[in-house]
């Protein structure tokens, strides 16, 4: 087992995890909401990219914005449907509704795309790079670059721009934000649409690494959850660091211990962390 190869695998995997989780990070940080349909939105993004490329023969760079547009549409529709629940902060119902959306999306995708696995080949995924014993694809390099750029841009927008300030105000106190004249409906709708776009771009970039299945959403939502909670709920930098840490953990655990139990091991680790530090690794000790 080549240590350096595992290190590179872990870094690529880590950036993938962070990229998948970016939409959820904003969702939790801003709206204090969770979306259990996140994994199925990822699956949909991957299948839309595959469908547009294989059926219509459109280039990869055109397929990505189309997948993002579909993601925006789905995110907007989800939030539009449960807007009253969100405004009432009825978190129990919101969680169940998003689970329902995930179930529907999986059914729709299986009906439309079929239940057999597909391979999403892109111009980048078929080009390998060998450095001695080390193997990497251009797709992996694209994942790392896009993840870094996306996180940097997001951090800038949330912390330095007017939109970011509005979003943070709504996160801090929605009622006060409403009194200050902020249209919180637009913010909530915008955040869900952003989540749809972010998860779609993540899917278009990461899905070429493995065969795609309409039932694969379950795994993605789990990883996202671990990244977001370990990173400290709503923390952008925390999610990025947690994503990479988890990627390295998964790569080494899978290579040296057991690939079948790597997800379960992540969860056991998460549960231990949550018991010791309920706010995640990025929080102050004892914080909630």
């Amino acid at each position, binding site marked *: 087992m080549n240590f350096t190869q595992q290190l590179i695998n872990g870094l690529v995997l880590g950036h993938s995890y962070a990229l998948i989780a970016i939409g959820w990070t904003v969702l939790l940080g801003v709206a204090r909401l969770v979306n259990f349909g996140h994994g199925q939105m990822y699956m949909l993004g991957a299948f839309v990219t595959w469908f547009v490329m294989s059926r219509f023969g459109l280039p990869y760079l055109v397929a990505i914005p189309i997948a993002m547009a579909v993601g925006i549409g789905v995110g907007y529709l989800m939030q539009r449907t449960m807007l009253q629940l969100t405004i009432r902060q009825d978190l129990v119902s919101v*969680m*169940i509704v998003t689970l*329902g959306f*995930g*179930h529907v999306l999986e*059914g*729709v995708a299986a009906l439309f795309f079929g*239940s057999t696995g597909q391979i999403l080949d892109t111009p980048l995924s078929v080009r390998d790079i060998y450095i001695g014993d080390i193997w990497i694809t251009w797709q992996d390099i694209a994942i790392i670059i896009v993840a870094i750029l996306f996180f940097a841009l997001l951090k800038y927008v949330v912390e330095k721009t007017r939109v970011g300030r509005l979003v943070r105000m709504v996160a801090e106190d929605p009622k006060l934000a409403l009194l200050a004249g902020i249209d919180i409906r637009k913010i909530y709708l915008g955040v869900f649409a952003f989540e749809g776009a972010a998860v779609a771009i993540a899917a278009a970039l990461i899905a070429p690494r493995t065969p795609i299945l309409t039932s694969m959403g379950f795994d993605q939502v789990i990883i996202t*959850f671990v990244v977001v909670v370990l990173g400290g*709920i709503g923390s952008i930098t925390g999610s990025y660091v947690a994503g990479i840490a988890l990627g390295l953990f998964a790569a080494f655990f899978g290579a040296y211990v057991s690939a079948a139990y790597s997800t379960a091991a992540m969860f056991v680790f998460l549960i231990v962390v949550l018991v010791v530090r309920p706010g995640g690794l990025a929080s102050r000790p004892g914080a909630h």
Partner: protein
Amino acid sequence: MRMMTPLSWLIGLGLMLIAPALLGGSGAVYSAFVLIAIFAVMSYGLDVIVSDLGEVSLAHPVFFAAGAYASAIGSSRWGFDPISTLLLAIAAAAIIAAGIGIVTLRMREFVFSLVTYAVTVVGMTLAANWAFLGGSDGITGIPVFNIFGYSALTDRELWPVAWLLLVAALYLVRCFRRSRLGQEAMTVHLNPRLATMSGIDPHRVRIQVFLFSAPITAAAGWLYSYQRAYISADVVDMYFLILMLTAVVLIGRRILLAPLIGVALILCQEKFLSFGGYVDRIILGSVLIVILSFMPRGLAGPAFDMLRWIKRRAKNINT
């Protein structure tokens, strides 16, 4: 439901017992009734968590699976009878519930739900990979349900057992809602601060409700293993979670018969009005979305409003 007298309960439950025979008594009807009873019992476990405690536990498929696996292993490998496997199923679920309860003691809302989701994922991984649980092959060779000389080879013969289990679950949930623990759970749900000021320990209440809830869902898993005679990792499937949640919210929360009616409506659609697996999945998910987003009191809400309106109209006409 408060208006129902013990006699009307007895008549209703008696009618339920003979309902499959009244509906033609075919194998498909008995099969549907047995499954409705099993899945309703499964849902009652979650109902007390969602409706009374006000939390969303996503770990209930694990309790269902714990009951099914405990029963399958106990009966096929160790030769236990159904009473012993039921006790084993309850013990297994109670141990897991105590573990989850302790771990999630200080977590609320989405963190609690996410951790319970994690438990389901771990359960799914274990069920699919652990040789003791049969791995991906599952557990076969579960003997026919046989108790005190009564053997249930078919769903027709299993129906009285499923009915009894359902009656027991209904009775337990009814007693829970009238008990001190049930009232404390509602207080913690509606006003945690008031609960604390009243001397109620929310952590203790949550663990106790969890310990009450998990064995009910596990008991459903116990009977499911005998009904299917084969258990594999698919008992931890997300379908069961969505089914439970939809059944709990479809009619309305804190209505004793609601999960039973909810499960009956869903399974009747899937068994007798099915449009294929994928469309059924879309229907089930859509029902969940529409009910929670636009009818938060469930189907019973508008029905009760209508009844109240009719009563008011009748009163006005009389006066």
